[in-house]
């Protein structure tokens, strides 16, 4: 974000009152961590109990009108015909060269109503692209500040939702439209941590009361409010892509190995021709995980070399894994690289040894029934 004041979530005052450390996430001032927690404690709470995150900076947009599903399906990469109404789907908004403008979740409400959750910084662009392409009768609306988004993540998530009288236990990537204290609420079984969990979408003005209730219920389960610092270490342990790092307009889904989110059999979607050609030819670089075997923590843009000194690529995200107690990284590497290869990461001039691994780096229960 180049200028102007940062936007704030409907929970901003709650975060300030809790004493959270705040930072800029895609133009939004959001909590990184809370006092009494910290990234490692918050991360561990999600892996072992439950954590509640404010992710209201995420975008919200709706596409409505006769044939809304078919319209979205002709634009975004994944195939909405793979799912039924009441299910959500991870999908990609690509450009003509196959680069990724954004990765997002599409909630299929009906054939005439699709709700989208893009990334904070990309919401405006996704909405503009869809608006420009929309035929007569299809309305695309940016609802960024119409809804909050709260994530409840961890093995005790169901207990937290039950304490609020909310539905839980539905299938992975399905959602229920319900009410909480008389207000409409979407409860989707999804998340970005690798643990069993839910993302709740209340109206903007309802988010603060819902947050208070969730935090109280989570604390009773040994849980914590969690900041976006822990969300990043959790998603990195899973190898989940973060737009701007593992995916970008310069990094295609074929390279990032999210081809599973592309409807290859569809006749049309943005970037189709470029992606089909790249898939056939084979990508010039491929996403891998790296587990540090020496000492040190790789960070974005650290160069990766073979043991013999050959340049292999670079780190896209790196951090300390609170679960493994080790440095881990996601990287884009030459197609010659294979699982188990020993490589060297240049961490600010220091050589750090690492082994190539296909993420996730940890065992998790995200899809358990």
């Amino acid at each position: 974000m180049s200028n102007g004041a940062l936007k704030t979530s409907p929970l901003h005052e709650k975060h300030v009152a809790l004493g959270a450390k705040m930072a800029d996430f895609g133009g939004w001032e959001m909590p990184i961590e809370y006092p009494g927690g910290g990234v490692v404690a918050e991360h561990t709470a999600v892996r072992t109990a439950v954590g509640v995150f404010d992710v209201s900076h995420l975008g919200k947009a709706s596409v409505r009108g006769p044939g809304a599903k078919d319209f979205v399906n002709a634009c975004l990469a994944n195939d909405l015909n793979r799912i039924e109404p009441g299910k959500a789907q991870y999908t990609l908004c690509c450009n003509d060269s196959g680069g990724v403008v954004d990765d997002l979740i599409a909630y299929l409400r009906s054939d005439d109503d699709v709700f989208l959750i893009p990334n904070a910084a990309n919401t405006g662009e996704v909405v503009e692209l869809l608006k420009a392409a929309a035929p007569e009768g299809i309305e695309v609306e940016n609802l960024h500040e119409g809804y909050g988004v709260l994530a409840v993540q961890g093995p005790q998530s169901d207990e937290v939702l039950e304490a609020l009288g909310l539905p839980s236990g539905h299938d992975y990537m399905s959602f229920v439209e319900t009410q909480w204290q008389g207000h409409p609420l979407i409860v989707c079984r999804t998340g970005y941590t690798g643990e069993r969990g839910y993302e709740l979408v209340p109206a903007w003005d309802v988010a603060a009361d819902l947050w208070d209730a969730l935090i109280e219920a989570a604390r009773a389960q040994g849980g914590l409010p969690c900041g976006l610092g822990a969300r990043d270490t959790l998603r990195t342990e899973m190898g989940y892509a973060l737009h701007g790092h593992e995916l970008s307009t310069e990094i295609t889904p074929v390279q990032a190995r999210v081809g599973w989110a592309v409807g290859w059999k569809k006749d049309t979607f943005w970037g189709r021709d470029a992606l089909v050609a790249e898939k056939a030819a084979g990508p010039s670089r491929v996403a891998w995980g790296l587990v540090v075997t020496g000492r040190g923590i790789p960070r974005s843009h650290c160069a990766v070399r073979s043991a013999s000194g050959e340049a292999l690529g670079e780190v896209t995200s790196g951090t300390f894994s609170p679960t493994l107690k080790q440095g881990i990284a996601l990287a884009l590497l030459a197609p010659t690289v294979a699982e188990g290869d020993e490589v060297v990461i240049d961490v600010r001039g220091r050589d750090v040894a690492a082994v190539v691994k296909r993420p996730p780096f940890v065992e998790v229960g995200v899809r358990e029934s």
Partner: protein
Amino acid sequence: MSELEYPEDLRYTAEHEWVRTGDGGVVRVGITSFAQDALGDVVYVSLPTVGDTVAAGDACGEVESTKSVSDLYSPLAGEVTAVNEALDATPELVNTDPYGEGWMYELKVDDLAAVEALMDQAAYREQLG
């Protein structure tokens, strides 16, 4: 973490290191409560090697948290005489006890008078604003 504290018997630098004067021209160096709090959970500390000669202002190590990395600067000129090897296995000592068990290294300084030229507690607090 309790309230951030800055002991009166220490000297401080603008880069948020503290210096404690010991015997025989040896000083102990660590990072302040402010620095560890700003970093968050410290997960890795890279220290200089015993026997290294450093000049004032030299980057001589790194402190990494889950979120970021920060250079460790030598506040004074001298020779490294000891490093806190406990930080290899338990870097979190930097958070829990920054002025005690979380110390970083010791330096035999060339000029003890230079220690007195560093900020005292009041000046450091003022710099923090």
